[in-house]
Structures are given as structure tokens and as C-alpha cells.
């Protein structure tokens, strides 16, 4: 059975862990480089991307994770997790994994008062997913190898490149496990 890691340095890792457990997979909070070596897939939660990036670099998780991604491990990043996966972050030199050919603009939907919910049509499911956007980043550009799986107001909010999946919103804050299930299928393949 696969073990899915949830990066547990900072953020809403508990919600992802609960979601994965509810879907019947073995989930583990990841805080050390050794754990990066033995998981089959990784979820990077929402939270503060600057905080998570610093802890990843400071505690030696960044390079092993980059190596695992280069070796084909599946990774799902939500919100801050997506920012960490992005190659380009507007106006920021913060620490990142930078594995996905996307450009993001942090907190581009505004401060907390502009946080919102909306129904997001997603290519691989019939009924739309409920998107919870919290101080969410906007994807401002996608490279040629990136496919857009969900959009809101003409902007991509759910994207995939190979074994990497990223969303501006938080499926882990809902009861709807369909996007996580899609990610788990990416891990298996």
C-alpha cells in the first residue's frame, strides 16, 4: 500500500491528513528528509509559503524533495503548496521548489476580506467542485507542458504538469474528496 506524505511543517496539514485518511490511504505527516525518501506521493498544504519554504530549506527537505520530483514522484500543492511548486513568483525571491512551469501572483485575489467560495467546473469530474479561496494566489501564466483542469473567471485555478498537481483553492476544507482521489490515481500510475 502506498504511503502519502503530507508536508507537516506549517499550515493546514491536518485537514489534508484527515481527507486522505477518510479516502482510505495511509497518510503520514512529513517533517524530516528521511521521510521524503520513503513516501510514494506528497501533498504540500496551504499555509504561509514563506514560512514553509524557510523550514524546508533550513531542515534539509528541499533538495531531497527536488530529487524525488525529478525521479517522478507525484506531488499535489494547494495554495501555498502551489506557490512553492511554481517556477516563477511575481515580485518575490522566496525559497521554492520551482518544479512547475507556472507563474503565480501571491495573494492576488486580495486580503482575507476578499476570500470567497465559488463552484469550479473541473475537467475530470461531472459536478463542479466547491472552491474555497483564502488569500489565494492567481496563476498568471502556464507553460506549454501544463494542462489546465479547472478555471475561475477565465484564470486557471487547477493545473497539472506530468506528476505535479496544483490548485489555488482548498479542496481539503470541503467534504469533497474527488480532487484528492484524482491525485491518488496519479500516484498509482
Amino acid at each position, binding site marked *: 500500500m502506498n504511503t502519502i506524505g503530507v508536508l507537516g511543517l*506549517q499550515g493546514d496539514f*491536518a485537514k489534508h491528513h484527515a481527507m486522505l485518511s477518510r479516502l482510505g490511504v495511509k497518510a503520514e505527516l512529513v517533517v524530516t528528509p528521511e521521510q521524503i525518501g520513503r513516501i510514494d506521493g506528497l501533498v504540500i498544504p496551504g*499555509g504561509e509559503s514563506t*514560512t514553509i519554504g524557510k523550514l524546508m530549506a533550513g531542515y534539509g527537505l528541499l533538495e531531497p524533495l527536488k530529487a524525488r520530483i525529478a525521479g517522478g514522484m507525484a506531488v499535489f500543492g494547494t495554495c501555498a503548496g502551489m506557490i512553492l511548486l511554481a517556477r516563477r513568483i511575481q515580485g518575490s525571491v522566496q525559497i521554492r521548489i520551482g518544479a512547475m512551469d507556472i507563474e503565480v501572483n501571491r495573494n492576488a485575489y486580495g486580503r482575507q476580506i476578499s476570500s470567497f467560495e465559488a463552484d469550479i467546473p473541473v475537467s475530470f469530474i461531472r459536478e463542479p467542485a466547491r472552491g474555497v479561496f483564502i488569500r489565494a494566489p492567481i496563476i498568471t501564466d502556464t507553460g506549454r507542458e501544463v494542462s489546465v483542469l479547472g478555471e475561475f473567471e477565465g484564470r486557471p485555478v487547477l493545473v497539472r504538469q506530468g506528476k505535479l498537481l496544483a490548485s489555488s483553492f482548498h479542496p481539503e476544507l470541503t467534504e469533497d474528496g474527488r480532487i484528492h482521489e484524482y491525485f491518488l490515481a496519479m500516484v498509482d500510475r
Partner: protein
Amino acid sequence: MSEKIWSERQTATWKTKVGLAEMLKGGVIMDVTTAEQASIAEEAGAAAVMALERVPADIRAHGGVARMSDPKIIKEIQSAVSIPVMAKCRIGHFVEAQILEALEIDFIDESEVLTPADDHFHVNKQQFKTPFVCGCRDLGEALRRIGEGAAMIRTKGEAGTGNIIEAVRHMRSVLDGIRRLSSAPEEELMTEAKNLGAPFELVVEVARAGKLPVPNFSAGGVATPADAALMRQLGAESVFVGSGVFKSANPRKRAKAIVEAVTYYNDAAKLAEISMDLGEPMTGIEMSEIDGEQRMAVRGW
């Protein structure tokens, strides 16, 4: 963009309010009084900052009436960092809360650290789009604040003392209350609600879930990485640090150490490394040195 979508997104729902609190878990929220301090906090890895005119230790020393910060300071701090910015309003001072909302503060702390504006009633937090955090000493107080609309609870501790004892007392008291409800038979819950002075519906929810319906953080008295890890091990999901960082000898180092301690709270070997050579912590105050009147934690109804 259509009108409908715009108005839809103006309504911050309960999910997005509690959701932001979820995002702050496993992080540190640091009190800052200037844009420069805010940048130091962000650089150290703080998950959010609390914009203040004075840290609690200085409020204590200064005396007089403590109020909401000057919006100018808040704006400067907002433009200095990319992480969420919180600010405090006085207990019951709903106009200060309205002003903070107009400033687009990410989280409002209706705080006992400031001088209360109302000695009977708190702000009706349901009316705001901005999420609120409130302090508590026990489960009843926590559930009253959640009933009023708080999306995050923090145990109060005793702010500005650098003494962790009250934070520990309050966290144990809340968790003890939750354990008690979890094991109580259904027919006792109404009387439990009466005794706690808490809304019955929330008492039932806590009894069934075995936890608060919103994230439970800790505040008031954290001065060292070990203090922060202690609160995490006791059950706090995140830690507020007030005077503990910028009243210490080396704020940069100490701030970073506390951030790391909150993540690696269960790893004693790492905590030992993190705690090394941080310089002097803030000077603490023994509880018996503070008169009843000067205690901030007793503010809240």
C-alpha cells in the same frame, strides 16, 4: 467580472474565516510595533504578525488606557510584509473593529490586552466579514466567544509577563472541559451548558467531536522555544508570541528559534539545538507581583 460574482466574493463565509485559522496552524503569530519588526518576523518565518503600538510588556509598564493601534502604523506594517496582518480592538469596541475591517486587516483580535470598552458585552463578531480571534481561560469562555462568531480561540495566559504558568493553566482548563463533556452522558449536557455559561448547541457539538469547532491556539507568556513547544505538546495548534521576541536580547535569533520549535515541538534533540545560544530572554514577572486589577486575563465576560 459580473456583478453577481463580485457580491458573492464579498461575503467571507464561515468556511473561509475558519479556513484562514487552519492555514495558520503549526505557525507563530508575532507581535510587532513597526514595519521593521514586521520584516524581521517575516524573515524569521512567522505565519502572521499582530500590528500593535506597544507590546503587552510596555502596555503594562506604561499604564493608562490601551487602545486600537494608529491606522498609520497598521498600514505601514501591511505594506512591509506579505503574510497575514492581525490587529487588536478593545473588548466590546465594535467601532474599532469596523475601522480594522475597513483597513482590510486579515484577523481581528478582540483582546484583553487592551483596556475593555464594555464591561458586559463583547463585539457581535457574526456581523463582520473579517474573522475574529478571542482569548479564553476556560471552555465556557471559549464557547461564548465562538457563539458570538469567533473563528479562532486562543488561551489568554497573562500577556507581557514572559511567564508561561497562566497559559498552561488556561490550556489545561479548556482541554479538561472538553474531556469532561466528551465523557458526559447526553442528559447531562444541558446542565453542563448552564454551568459553563455556554450555548447548548456548541456544548453538544464539543461533546460529540471531542474538540473545539475552531482552531485552538495559545498566547500570553511565551518567552522561549521550550515554552512554545510546551504549549504545542499540551494541545495548542499554534502559538502567539507577544513581548517574548522583541523584548529579548536578540529578536532575530529568538524569533527564528520559536518558529522552529513550534514545528519540531516533539523532537527534544532538535529543541536542544534550537534553544542554544539565543541571548537573554525577556525579563519575566512572577504572578504574585501583579495585583488583581492589573491582570489582563480576567477581562472578558
